[in-house]
């Protein structure tokens, strides 16, 4: 396992994060949730920046808080709101990165900076939000890490830049034995990129599923009140009252398609599934 959360609890004044999660090799894991759901806290626990109140977090077979510099060299990190001092220039970061990471690939990094039009002789504070985001990802990819932790890496990026970054990450995953944990509050970013999705809501995992299964098996039944009464409710996850009757979320779409051919079954996007999971009623 790359990362293991064993019954981890982290409490703040009015917020509790409660996680049990395993992240294996060769997987891209997406963390989805609204702002304040607990995504950044999850990353901070993985990196040992904060200490769990209960349970333990293991990263690369070591307790997160005891990670040695050698293990940290195998981790690339991106935070949307943090990085090297913004008073520095990219050219100044190169000798610093060389000192931190013996495997820092200077030429590749310089080529990518050119490709993504990142100025090397300008202070980072003068960069646009998109440039900063790209630079952070390029730095994380520059030293041959085998685990990437990306907290909102595409925040502030336009569609083209976002796709370019996702392409870089796909290229990174071509080498076996690597994993990525990536968070976003825009699930569309992760829908076609991640193997697994974890949905975090108010500090708890409300959904863990393979992305393909969400897209293939999850669906919305649009039913009238009479149809709803006659429906087998065993495979319904959430229900919401609608003007026409009920909208029901299921993770067994094909069961209803086969057994209730008269009812409307719609394919839901990840965003719609999440909204229903959060706002719908449990049966």
């Amino acid at each position, binding site marked *: 396992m790359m990362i293991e959360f064993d019954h981890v609890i982290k409490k703040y004044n009015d917020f509790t994060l409660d996680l049990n999660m395993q992240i294996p090799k060769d997987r891209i894991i997406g963390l989805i949730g609204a702002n304040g759901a607990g995504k950044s806290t999850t990353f901070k626990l993985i990196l040992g920046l904060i200490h769990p109140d209960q349970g333990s977090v293991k990263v690369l077979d070591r307790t997160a808080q005891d990670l040695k510099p050698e293990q940290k060299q195998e981790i690339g990190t991106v935070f949307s*709101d943090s990085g090297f*001092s913004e008073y*520095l220039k990219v050219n*100044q970061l190169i000798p610093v990165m060389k000192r931190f990471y013996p495997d820092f690939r200077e030429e590749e990094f310089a080529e990518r900076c050119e490709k993504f039009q990142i100025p090397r002789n300008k202070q980072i504070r003068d960069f646009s939000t998109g440039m900063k985001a790209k630079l952070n990802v390029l730095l994380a990819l520059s030293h041959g890490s085998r685990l990437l*932790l990306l907290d909102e890496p595409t925040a502030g990026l336009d569609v083209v830049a976002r796709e370019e970054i996702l392409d870089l990450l796909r290229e990174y995953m071509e080498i076996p034995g690597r994993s990525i944990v990536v968070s976003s509050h825009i699930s569309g970013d992760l829908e076609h990129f991640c193997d697994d999705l974890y949905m975090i809501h108010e500090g708890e995992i409300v959904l863990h599923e393979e992305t393909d299964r969400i897209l293939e098996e999850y669906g919305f039944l649009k039913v009238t009140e009479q149809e709803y009464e006659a429906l087998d409710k065993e495979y319904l996850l959430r229900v919401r009252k609608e003007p026409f009757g009920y909208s029901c979320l299921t993770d067994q779409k094909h069961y209803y398609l086969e057994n209730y051919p008269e009812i409307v079954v719609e394919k839901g996007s990840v965003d719609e599934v999440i909204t229903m999971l959060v706002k719908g009623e449990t049966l």
Partner: protein
Amino acid sequence: MSGLLAKDMELLKINMKTYLAVFLIGFMYLIVQKNGSTFFVYYSIFVSIGVSVGTISYDAYHHGMNYLMTLPVTRKQYVWSKYLLGFCFAAVTGMAALLIGILKVQVTGNQEMQDLLISAGVSMILAGMILCGTIPLRLKYEAEKSRIIMVAAAAALFLLVAVCREGYNIYKKGFVRGFEFLERISGWQTACLLIVLLMICTAVSVKVSERIMERKEF
């Protein structure tokens, strides 16, 4: 840890012009004043403390510490890098200022060389003591708060000295007996005593800073 020091050196380079301008003010005082060498050495060393400790604030801007602690360093190494930078920068700056001061004394002959050397030594010890107080404070609190605490600590120290002085006047004989040993020790022995005191302070300060960093959540 070399990565952290490399980063700090790059940060120092950014404001080099400002620092040089500040040093120039001291240098002008050195030229103009008859006995300016002592002031110049003190001034340079204390400016260097501000500069090196200031890198902690640079690290903290824009949640920078979150990112720094994800790099291949331990929290202890971060602490050590700050002490190393602070002491080395003060030593290098102090030596450079002392050499310039000596040159001035040689050229003008206005000041006793021995006085200058003693002043330089005392200022280095004092600078070390200040670093021992400032670094843990800066690690624990943000820049503004740590400055307030430092000023409060200095005020408390002055108050303590004033109380001791009053106490000395009242219990003169007792005090004199207590400090009689000072009259018997030579200048070199005093210097060694101060160096040992500084080493103890540094060891305690490093331990306190390590503890602050270990407990800190980012």
